[in-house]
């Protein structure tokens, strides 16, 4: 598993308004593009000095491509990053204040302690 890369995806998309919209509308295409173009970009470095070895495994790629945030929780993605980005994606679809956050909790209701390890 590459929890670091899962987190890097969530982190880089969450901080870019255009990417947030692109990921909402075209999740699979965005994940494919991001893995090919962005996964190995060093965030504090010129693009020419990128890493060479980072990639999702099939389970991770599918979880991101299907907006499957319970699966991301199970994979040990950082829950703060997951929650924040998915609020940006889906809160707008709910009329009730905090509607998405409550749905998020409901969909994870059968998870019990200990939660998956989020260490990277």
């Amino acid at each position, binding site marked *: 598993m590459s929890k670091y890369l899962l987190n890097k995806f969530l982190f880089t998309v969450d901080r870019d*308004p255009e990417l947030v919209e692109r990921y909402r509308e075209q999740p699979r295409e965005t994940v494919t593009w991001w893995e090919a173009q962005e996964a190995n970009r060093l*965030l*504090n470095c010129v693009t020419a000095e990128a890493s060479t070895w980072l990639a999702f495994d099939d389970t991770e790629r599918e979880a991101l491509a299907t907006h499957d945030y319970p699966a991301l929780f199970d994979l040990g993605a950082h829950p*703060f990053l997951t929650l924040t980005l998915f609020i940006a994606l889906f809160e707008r679809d709910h009329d009730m204040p905090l509607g998405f956050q409550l749905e998020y*909790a409901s969909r994870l*209701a059968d998870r019990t302690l200990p939660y998956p390890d989020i260490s*990277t």
Partner: protein
Amino acid sequence: MAQLVAVIASTHHPFYYRASTATGQDRPPFADEWVRKIEAFRATLTRARPDVLVMVGSDHFHQLWLDNMPQFLVGKAPTYDANWYNEEREFGLPRMVLPGQEDLSAYVLREGLDAGFDLAFSNELRIDHSITCPIITLRPQADLPIVPIYTNIFAPPLPQPRRFVQLGQTLRQLIESWPSQQRVAVIGTGHLSLELGGPRQFGAHGPDPEFDRRAVEWIGTGDLEKALAEVTLESLHLPGNATHGFMDFMLMMGIAGEGNRADHVDTLDLFHTMEAYFTWYPNGLDGGSS
């Protein structure tokens, strides 16, 4: 030498700004009580007449990232831009600019290193709601220079709780030995029980009211011994997956000192979290006059 005139610890709820400024049907029913409590809390800082604020918070994966994550970082910049696009998006927080106090930053870094803390530093730190929320609540005019200190409370591996207490004890020594006539207040924010991105989030109360009750008692009475005896990195997962932010409260207990009761203790039970507010006057309100 500088005077430590107030030690302030609180939660940092990013919805306060929106709730307190909302009007009409948008204003939540708990807003007025929340504002009253915050204004009473704000008065505890105003009374101390500080010249500079040391601000303890934690970057929420805004600037600091897993490719190069510091455990404890001191900002050393003349100016700090504040708040981020995704905080504006989610919480409605305004963009802010805060002045820095570079002399005290430099002193904390040099003396802190020599005292045994391998502190990271940043000459260009954009700060987030962990520091701007207490500015909004406690010093909304944002007119005092700050020294931001970031701790890592949510990207494992984390420092042990005792290390947060030790850093607090060291920060107090450093502030009180700073060769300056300035009046220093330290403001730090953390969490009681809190769940984010998990099944226990946004319930009727915080995820673990019993932990919150005990934590408020430890902080309010300065009972560091009991807090350290009952809290470990492992146990802090139990009251909620974001409860490691409690270690920033423990840091503030280290600054306030073992056994020192807070002069102001207040709480507010919001629907998904217990807000908590503490102020100590280390030299008393009169003893701190210059």
